[in-house]
């Protein structure tokens, strides 16, 4: 019962802040609303007996990613534009389509007989680390995936640096030198 109440509160916050993302004019406000939404989701993870994911959610998502996003928004001053309309005619397509899709999927979901299993494991650090690194027990699959993920992050970092750095001889850098 208590869990349900917490869930409703957190869920309402999550959805509400998600709406704020949708409706806010300035990206910075949107980003902050998104952080709020993510935090409340982290709470729900806790409710669902997955504290580790909740913590990772707070640290990586709400912390790192959103921080990066906010940083970039602030760095790019032009992000604050008032010319671009929030919605246009495309939205007329999108909103009903998504709503219909959601309705359909929701319809199916509601009819499906799912229920919590009491034997489901608690998503603790121990469980996670054992699954990931105890190769002898769970097989090498997750471990390899983990390593590959490391490579992916590394390469994305390199890509980001390469993409975002100012190239010598580019128009911008020339302009900068002129100034």
């Amino acid at each position: 019962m208590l869990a349900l109440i917490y869930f409703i509160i957190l869920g309402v916050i999550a959805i509400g802040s998600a709406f704020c993302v949708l409706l806010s004019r300035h990206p910075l406000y949107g980003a902050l609303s998104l952080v709020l939404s993510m935090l409340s989701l982290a709470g729900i993870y806790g409710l669902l007996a997955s504290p580790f994911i909740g913590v990772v959610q707070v640290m990586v998502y709400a912390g790192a990613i959103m921080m990066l996003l906010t940083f970039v928004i602030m760095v790019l001053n032009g992000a604050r534009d008032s010319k671009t309309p929030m919605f246009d005619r495309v939205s007329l397509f999108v909103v009903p389509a998504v709503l219909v899709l959601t309705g359909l999927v929701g319809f199916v979901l509601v009819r499906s007989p799912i229920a919590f299993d009491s034997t489901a494991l608690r998503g603790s650090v121990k469980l996670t680390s054992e699954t990931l690194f105890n190769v002898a027990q769970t097989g090498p699959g997750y471990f390899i995936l983990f390593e590959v993920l490391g490579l992916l992050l590394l390469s994305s970092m390199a890509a980001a640096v390469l993409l975002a750095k100012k190239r010598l001889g580019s128009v911008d850098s020339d302009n900068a030198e002129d100034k």
Partner: protein
Amino acid sequence: MMNLPLWLIPLLPLVGTILLGAIAVISSGSKKGPSEGMVGFLAVLFPALAFVAVLLLAMGMPVDGIRGTLCNWIDIPLFKADFGFLFDGLSRIMLLFVTGIGALITLYSIGYMHGDRGFARFFAYINLFLFSMIVLVLGDSLLLTFLGWEGVGLCSYLLIGFWNKDVNNCKAANKAFIVNRVGDIGFLLGMLCLVTVGGAGILNYDALNAFIQMILTGGHVEIVLPILSLAGLLFFIGCTGKSAQIPLLTWLPDAMAGPTPVSALIHAATMVTAGVYLLARLGNMFALLPVVLFIITLIGLLTAFWAAMAGLFQNDIKKVLAYSTISQLGYMFMAAGVCAFDASIFHVFTHAFFKAALFLGAGAVIHALAGEQDMRKMGGMLKKTPVTACVMLFAFFAIIGFPGFAGFWSKDLILERLFMSGPLGPAFYVVGLLTAVITAVYMGRLIILTFFGSYRGSKESEEHIHEAPACMLIPMVILAIGAIFAGYFWADSLGITVFSDSLAPVVGAAQASVVHAGAHVNPLIFAGLGTLAALLGMFIALKVYGSARIPEAKGSSAPQGFKASWTFFFDSLHKYCGIIPVSVLAWICDVVVDKILQAIQWTVGAIATILGDGVSTFQVRKVRLQLAFSVACVAILVAVVLLTGGTF
């Protein structure tokens, strides 16, 4: 001597062809061309050798002939054919004069073609022709005969269009080939017809005769008669094509566009008689088919009469001879039509001599006049070219059936057989006789216009008139001698029947099967009537053309090749029944059907393009819109899946 293999005979000219062809191709690059002496020697050598081989074989031939199978040709289910040769009485006679006259005319051509750029090429063609002709008469199956049959047609095409710089010659050649092709398809379908009746091996002559014998003894004639008649008719169409009978005769006058020796060899002496040969060869079969025989007689009669009439109106010396050839071929068909196959072959034999002599003589005249072919510009050649004139005169007597000359014996024989052929015989006989009169008239006209009177050409050309060289004269003289004496091989009135005896094993059975119920008439009456006809014709010719005005030659007198001056209505008939319908059909295909198909193709293409354009308007530059569409479509898909209950 008996060990001479049969395949040697066709092989010799084939070797000649290959050698001369190689020489022609190799020397085509050089300016001067190959040595004419060597080419001429090679060209004559192989036909002459073939003649010798035939002679040797003919001497020691057993009564029922020699058979030799070289190897298998086609062997598939339903059908089997060998390269086999059959040397019997019929092919012996045909081969003798084919190779003999062929060798003579080749010799003549050396003089005639002197200085021509395509000297070696010409003789390669001639040798190829002789090869095909030998295969035609020597083949022991219809298929092998067909090989020769189309082969001679091909050579005829090549030689008519020999001077291929003039497109008219090419057109004449095309016409000859295509008209012949129509006939050939008849032949082909006739063969298929026979295969249907008699099975895979039937095309062999021996097998065919055995089959016919089997039918006769078994009494199954009624059963196979319709399809055999069809086959017979189809074969006859083939014969009309090759032998220029109604309705496929218009190509022969045009074929005179070729060099004159070619006209002599191919379009008078040998190739055109292939149809008669085929009729005689299939005599046993034709003897069973009264309807077909009647058609053959009628066609032969009409052709003989019509061609004689047309011959009256020609001004080109070679065209006159061409029509006379058609007319004589008509005689041969008449004879074949009343089952007198030996008589028709006899006429082929004598005709080969005198017609070849006539053509060679005409060639000598044309040669002397440097290419002039219009009779209206000739005249008085008797003094200038006496040998040629004598040869022509003898041949003239032979063709009109002057007593004692070759044509007399054979033509009388045919007319006699015609008369006795049945209830319609006398009528046939009268028309035949009338034709003989007309023959004498137009041939007399030719002789008078060419050799008598005074020269009507230009003065400067008169000085160049000269007698032909010896290598041209020798063959002419030999042929003239043949034209005089060839008839004595079968002088019925004198009781000499060498010729018919030698043919009897082949065609005797067929002729015996058709019993003539006509009253027996003294042969001397026929001889007398024939002589009378010849004399009458000569008299008319003398009266009309000897003294009367000679029509003025108008316009160009160059050989007209494609355009025969007057062919009654057969050219128009071909035009309206053959060429125009095909052209219209082609036009419909090209302009109507093809355009419709293209329109359909275009419409489908256009619809696809429009649809594509329509779809591509959705492919806008807005990524978000694309995404929106895809989301909407996912929604639709999900809805479909839900509604159909997951059937897909």
